[in-house]
Structures are given as structure tokens and as C-alpha cells.
């Protein structure tokens, strides 16, 4: 809205920029905090090992073996492995963008979709079922995953709209219902049509359903592919980015988005204006669910991981990380793309740290701190805006002189 402001007064114009800068401040502060944590952890481990070390040594070790991998992410790894690591980053970013969008979209209507994990689970099941059992092409599987998520999102929406049951409670319960429905359906006492007894996972798509694998792409660097033949990333990331743009358009440019936001900001005024807030709640949750479901489709149809019904007794973390993504992006769909890539980046980087010194979970601490700081991003935004105003204030005075 602000960028269309053509009036000479400046207070509206930089708010978008200020939000972006505020998010960047959060990221930098989070990284700084992470560095301190690494220093402490490294110091503890090194002093326990009994060897003599100076602070300078500790600083250098932490920088080289801890902080650098995190900041460089997939690009830290050795040249021959880099393609694979970067592919991992891209691969993990796609579903993260989708669950982030899921949370952000529902939030625009004033709803908190904590059920992305369950919607993701159901989406994964339908994608794999269509792929392995029904032998459908990838795009049908992807649509199926979206439909699965949509149904799982719609249910809390219906409960909220027509029975006034808080969507958070229903969504949490449906997370578990989804998980404990999907696992036995795949396992079926070992006889499930998708279950491979040898690996105790679902069949790999490469062997059983190559038609359902997402197409891959390569980047040409110096006359040859950047990614090795076996490690080409899927087009999932582009689908996710495309959907993010689509969601941005829906929210900001359409009458549908207008209604959703009106309900989110002020339910009573929306009702007064003849907007059916119940329909909007259900629709919003349905779409949010579909987004999370597609996220699962993008991940499992890439063929790099299989569902493990016997091990998967915890909800997929990507569902909850979607909340972090949306928070970091302050619910801006385009912002979700960047924040998802960031979180994926430092997570992959965390894996490259010298394991005997630094646990890879430090990347979780960093993203945690970043998210926590996001709560203050409004504060940062205010400060940055003030800075802007002061600057342009002196400019204005200068103009007069």
C-alpha cells in the first residue's frame, strides 16, 4: 500500500523498506548470538579435552569450523560435494516456503494455522499413494497432496466458523490424527502396498514410480552442469516461488484477498459490510492446508527421501518451522521465500560444523534467536523509521536553506 503513496510526506513510503531492514537486523543479531554460543561451546569442549589453547586460537577455530559453515551453508562443503549440499538446501527450502506460506496466509485472516504439520503429513500420504499405487504422473500427485492438505486444513476451519472452536486446538489434534492415520495406512502390518519390508520405508520413487518424480534442472557453470548428474535439484523450488507470488497477488490484488484481510483485521466490520466471515474462515484454512500439503508433495516427489511409518512418530518439523518462516517474513508471501531459504541455508550449514566441537543444533538456536528477535522487529522498524525521518528532516531543512 505504502509504495503507491505519491504525497510528498514521507512517513508512509519507507515502511516496507523499514520492515525489510528490521528483519535483516534480526538475522544479523541472531547470527551474532549464534557466534557467541559457538564460542562458549567450543571453549567448553576444548578445555575438557585438556589441551592448552589461547583465546585467539578459540576465536579462530570457532570462526573456521563453526561460524563459517553456518554462514556459508551448502557452499561451505568441498568442491566435489558442493552440488549435493546446495541441492539439499534447495530441496529443503521448497517445502519450507510452502508451510511458511500456509501459516502466513491463514494469519492474514486472523487465524493461526498450527496444523501445517498434519496437513503436510496427509499431503505426503496422498502424493505417495498416487505415485506408488496409482502410478500417476508427478503433477497429479502434487495436486493430490494439495487436496489432502486442503481437507485437513478445512476441518479446523469449519469447526472455527460454525462451532466457534478455536482453530489452534482442533489443528493440534488433527496433527496427531493425521500422523496416526497415515502411518498405519502405509504400514498395514507390513503388507501395505507402498511399504517396503526391506528398508522399512515406502518404496523409492526411482524404482517403483519414476513417472512421479519431479522434473530436475541444472545450472550451466563454465560449460558443464553445476550439479552432478545424480544430484540435480527438482523444479520444486520454482513451483514454490511461483505459488508464493500467486499468493501475494491473491492477498494484495484481489477482492478475495480484500475480504480475507478485512475479516482478519476486524471481523465485526467485515460482517457489517456483508462479507461472510464464516465462509472466509473456512476458505482461508482450506487454502492454508493446501499450501502445506503441496509442500509435502514437493518434498516427497523429489525422490530423495521416503516416508518411514515405523519411525515417523513425531510430527514433521517442517510444519512447525513454517511458523518461524512466516514470523520472520512478517507474513509477507515473498518474504517467506527468503526466510525459508535462509533457514534451510543455516540448517544445512549446521551439518558442516566440526561435530566434535559444535552440535549441528546450533543452527536451530540461531533460527530460534532470529525468530525471537522478530517479536521485536516492530520495535526495530519504529527505530529505523525514526532514523529515516530524522535524515529526511535534516534534508528538508537543508533544502530550505
Amino acid at each position, binding site marked *: *500500500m*505504502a509504495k*503507491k*503513496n505519491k*504525497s510528498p*510526506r*514521507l*512517513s*508512509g513510503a519507507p515502511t516496507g523498506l523499514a520492515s525489510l531492514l528490521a528483519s535483516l537486523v534480526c538475522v544479523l543479531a541472531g547470527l551474532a548470538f549464534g557466534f557467541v554460543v559457538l564460542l562458549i561451546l567450543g571453549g567448553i569442549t576444548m578445555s575438557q579435552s585438556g589441551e592448552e589453547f589461547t583465546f585467539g586460537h578459540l576465536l579462530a577455530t570457532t570462526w573456521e569450523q563453526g561460524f563459517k559453515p553456518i554462514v556459508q551453508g551448502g557452499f561451505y562443503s568441498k568442491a566435489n560435494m558442493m552440488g549435493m549440499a546446495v541441492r539439499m538446501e534447495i530441496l529443503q527450502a521448497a517445502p519450507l516456503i510452502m508451510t511458511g506460506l500456509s501459516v502466513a496466509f491463514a494469519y492474514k485472516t486472523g487465524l493461526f494455522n498450527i496444523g501445517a504439520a498434519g496437513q503436510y503429513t496427509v499431503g505426503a500420504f496422498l502424493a505417495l499413494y498416487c505415485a506408488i499405487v496409482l502410478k500417476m504422473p508427478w503433477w497429479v500427485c502434487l495436486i493430490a497432496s494439495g487436496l489432502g492438505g486442503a481437507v485437513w486444513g478445512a476441518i479446523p476451519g469449519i469447526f472455527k466458523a460454525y462451532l466457534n472452536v478455536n482453530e489452534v486446538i482442533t489443528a493440534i489434534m488433527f496433527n496427531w490424527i493425521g500422523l496416526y492415520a497415515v502411518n498405519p495406512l502405509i504400514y498395514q502390518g507390513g503388507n501395505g502396498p507402498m511399504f517396503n519390508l526391506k528398508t522399512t520405508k515406502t518404496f523409492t520413487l526411482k524404482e517403483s514410480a519414476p513417472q512421479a518424480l519431479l522434473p530436475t534442472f541444472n545450472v550451466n557453470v563454465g560449460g558443464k552442469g553445476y550439479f552432478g548428474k545424480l544430484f540435480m535439484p527438482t523444479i520444486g523450488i520454482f513451483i514454490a516461488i511461483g505459488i508464493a507470488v500467486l499468493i501475494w497477488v491473491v492477498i494484495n*490484488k*484481489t*477482492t*478475495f484477498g*480484500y475480504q480475507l*484481510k*478485512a475479516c482478519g*483485521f*476486524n471481523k*465485526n*466490520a*467485515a*460482517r*457489517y*459490510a*456483508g*462479507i*461472510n466471515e464464516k465462509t472466509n474462515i473456512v476458505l482461508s484454512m482450506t487454502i492454508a492446508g493446501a499450501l502445506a500439503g503441496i509442500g509435502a508433495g514437493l518434498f516427497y516427489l523429489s525422490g530423495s527421501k521416503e516416508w518411514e511409518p515405523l519411525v515417523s512418530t513425531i510430527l514433521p518439523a517442517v510444519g512447525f518451522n513454517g511458523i518461524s518462516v512466516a514470523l520472520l517474513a512478517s507474513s509477507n508471501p515473498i518474504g517467506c521465500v527468503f526466510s525459508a531459504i535462509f533457514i534451510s541455508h543455516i540448517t544445512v550449514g549446521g551439518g558442516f560444523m566440526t561435530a566434535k566441537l559444535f552440535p549441528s543444533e546450533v543452527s536451530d538456536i540461531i533460527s530460534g534467536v532470529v525468530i525471537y528477535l522478530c517479536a521485536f522487529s516492530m520495535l526495530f522498524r519504529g527505530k529505523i523509521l525514526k532514523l529515516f*525521518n530524522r535524515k529526511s528532516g535534516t534534508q528538508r531543512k537543508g533544502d530550505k536553506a
Partner: protein
Amino acid sequence: MADYVIEMLNITKEFPGIKANDDVTLQLRRGEIHALLGENGAGKSTLMSVLFGLYQPESGIIKKDGQVVKINNPNDATALHIGMVHQHFKLVECFTVLDNIILGAEPTKGLTVDRKAARKRVVALSERYGLKVDPDAKIEDISVGMQQRVEILKMLYRDNEILIFDEPTAVLTPQEIDELMEIMRSFKKEGKSILFITHKLAEIKAVADRCSVLRKGKYMGTVEVADTSVEEMSRLMVGRDVQLVSHKEEQTPGKVILRVENMTVPSRVHSNNAVKNASLEVREGEIVCLAGIEGNGQTEFVYALTGLEKMSAGKIYLDGKDVTHASIRERNSLGLSHIPEDRHKHGLVLDYTLQNNMVLQRFREPEFQRLGFIREGAVREYSDRLSQQYDVRSGQGSATITRSMSGGNQQKAIVAREIDQNPQLLIAVQPTRGLDVGAIEYIHKQIIAQRDAGKAVLLVSLELDEVMNLSDRILVMYEGEIVGEFNPKTTDVQTLGLYMAGAKRAE
């Protein structure tokens, strides 16, 4: 030299896009009642927030008893014995009166609150000033007038010498207003100094000694109330002559537009019905006013009429069509416009821009959307046109977030939006609540213009002046029933008051 207890000299406070206070000076004498008069958005609240330490001015100084003081936060203000009754009370609903009064200044005995001592003091204070309250009643159970007394007692309990009242009469009944005026006079006798923010000129005439006027952030001067007429004060405030009584032509009402038959609406608060068997008609070219004391079913009546609430019995006909079960949107498209009682709850999406609010019902029309995409340009143009036509002022034009606009301009935006839909029936509920004379005059003119254009207008108002001034017919509602019908030309405020209070009813 006069004995000033508080002086605010050359205060300037800027917000992005607006100078809220521009070189404002306010001098409060010891023991006087000093009115601060100004339109909405004139900068009264900003000035008081500066005095209370909520804002820091860009320039200017504050003196207390001739000494320059720095007020950084409300605690500093309290230490200087400055107290304030805010327009929206700051009370803990589920606490007792006594607990609310001592909250933050509790007398202690060891580790416990010494309620006995506190009660003694509160009772003594309330007797001394005639502020009757029950110390053990809970805030949620007492009337708004009582709540205000609690706020006043809070100031007295803290030995405040300078008492600020921010639009204290907006929420009170006529009797309660009289009592408040009496209380203010007794404070003055005690030597306390009072700053009284208002835009009701009659009240200034009744109690104030002097009056400072602000207009658009600028200080217009201070006058002796006794030597200044109401007209002069309003001219100072608005900058032009204001018609305090609206002028309207005779009109012969046409066909019936709205017919309500035996409407009954259940109450959300109690088991009784909020509206009982109410029937009325509104015809083309007439303003029918539903008068009554707050909480006698008018709100629920309008909710049912507009579709916000379900009714349990009765029928509604709009231009002959039965709309009893129609949705809000259907009623809208049949020509019903509604200026809601609560502009923040129903009237506006405060976090939307002004232009988005201007098309709150109309965004689906082909003029404003194509294939489901909002036509931003058209919305902007429409909003610009309405803002200009209806004099809606805002910092950044149509792109202003509505929350940052002043109450008067928010209300004007709603009025503009509702009238521009060219309704057959305009329902205006408390359309001028909390507005200044300039805005009131403007909105009254718009309502009369609708009537003169042959529209049916149903006005719901608690302000008897407004009722007498605008309406062609008056219906009085008491405890959910319509208890009398009057012609404003042949009745008077006293008679209406009797019906409103339930002392009399038509058979």
C-alpha cells in the same frame, strides 16, 4: 502577575505528516476551571499527553508553580500532583471500587494491603465531595457515571492538585452531567485547578472561568467565559460562523420505505428480550428519530434491522419487500445504508487504508473490480472524490491508515461512504457521538439533505438536542418498547425525558 499553577509555553509537537501542536501556550491559574476547546484533531489530546509525560514536545517548556519542570513519563506527572480522568476509563473491571482506587498507591501494613485504612480514607473523601460510591461494588456492576466517580476518587486519593478531565460528559446522562458540574465546582472551592477538555459549549458556559481555544494545532487565544458568547467561542474554534440549529424546509413524507412489525429481539446479556414487540414506519422524505436512554433496546433494534442480529419474532419490510430473513448484503443492495453506533467495531477496518474503507461494501461492484482483481486506480479515485466532497481530512490522503485519523474524520468517512451509496433508507446511529460542533453541523446538514432528496432516514440518538433539532417524528424507546410518538414542534425536552425515564407512557 497572576498565580499560575501550570504553564505550558510555546509547545510544539510534530507527528509524521502533521503538526499536532504548533506553538501552543496554556496557562492554568490556581483554583480555576479552565476549559480547553477545539475540534477533533485540533491537538487537545496531544497537548494533554505532553503535560502527562506521554509525549515529549519538540520545543517549548512546562512550568509548575513558576519553576520549569521536565515531565518524562506519567510518574513524573503524578509526582507533580497532576491527575487525569481519561475519556476511556482506566479501570480493572473485575476489581472492587476500593481496589481500583488504591491500585498503585496501596497503603501497606507489613506485607499486606491495609484495606481498612484505605477504606477509611476513600469513604472520607467520597463524603467530603459528595461522590457517592459503594467501595465494595465491582466496576463491571456499576454504571458509567459511577465509574467516572471512581476515576475522580483515584485522583483525589493521590492528593492531585491539578485535575484534567478529558471529555468527561460524553458518556453521561443529563442528570449525571449536572452532578459532575457540581462536583467540579466544589473542587474549585477547595482550591484545586481543573483543566476541562470538551467541545460542548454549553458546559463551558456552565462551569468554566476561562477557555483556551485550539484550531488545527494552533493556539487561538484564551477568553473569559463570562464575557464571551457561545457563538464567539464556536467561531474561534471552527474559524467561521456555525449554525448551532439546523435549518430545514417543510417536507411532505411520501410512501413507506421501512416497515417494522412486532419486532422482538432476544438480549445477549439477560434472559429478557432486548426489543419487545416494536413496530414503526419510516417514509420517504422524513427523519424519524428513535430516542431513549442508552441500553433501552435501540442498539439491538438496529442490529436486527440491519441483519447483524437475529430477531425471534416480527417482520421487516424494505420498500414493500420482506427482508426479515435477508442477509446483510441483500439488505445493502436493496438500498439500506447504516452509519453504525460504534465506528471502530463495525464502521471501519482500522488497519485498512482510507480508500479500502471507502469501498467496504462496494468492492464487488464492476466499477471497483475486474475478474476478481481490485481496480486500485478506480478505488483511489473514488476515495479521493469522496474525501474531497465530504471534507474528510487525513495525513496522507486515501493511502492513510484509518487508525491514524482523528475520530471526526473517521466518522465523516463513514458518513460519506454510506450516503454515497445513494440509499433508500439511511439508518444513522449516534452519527455525531464525540464530534465537535463543526463536524456535527456538517453531518446534520448531510442527513437533512438526504431527507430533502426524498430518502427515508431513521436516526437513533441519545442527544436530545439532536433529536429535537433534526427529526420530523420522535419515537421514544423504553426497556425495548416504543412508549410514545411525538411531533418535535409540539413537544419539549422535559416531556420526552419523562417518557425516556419510563415515568410516563402512551396507552
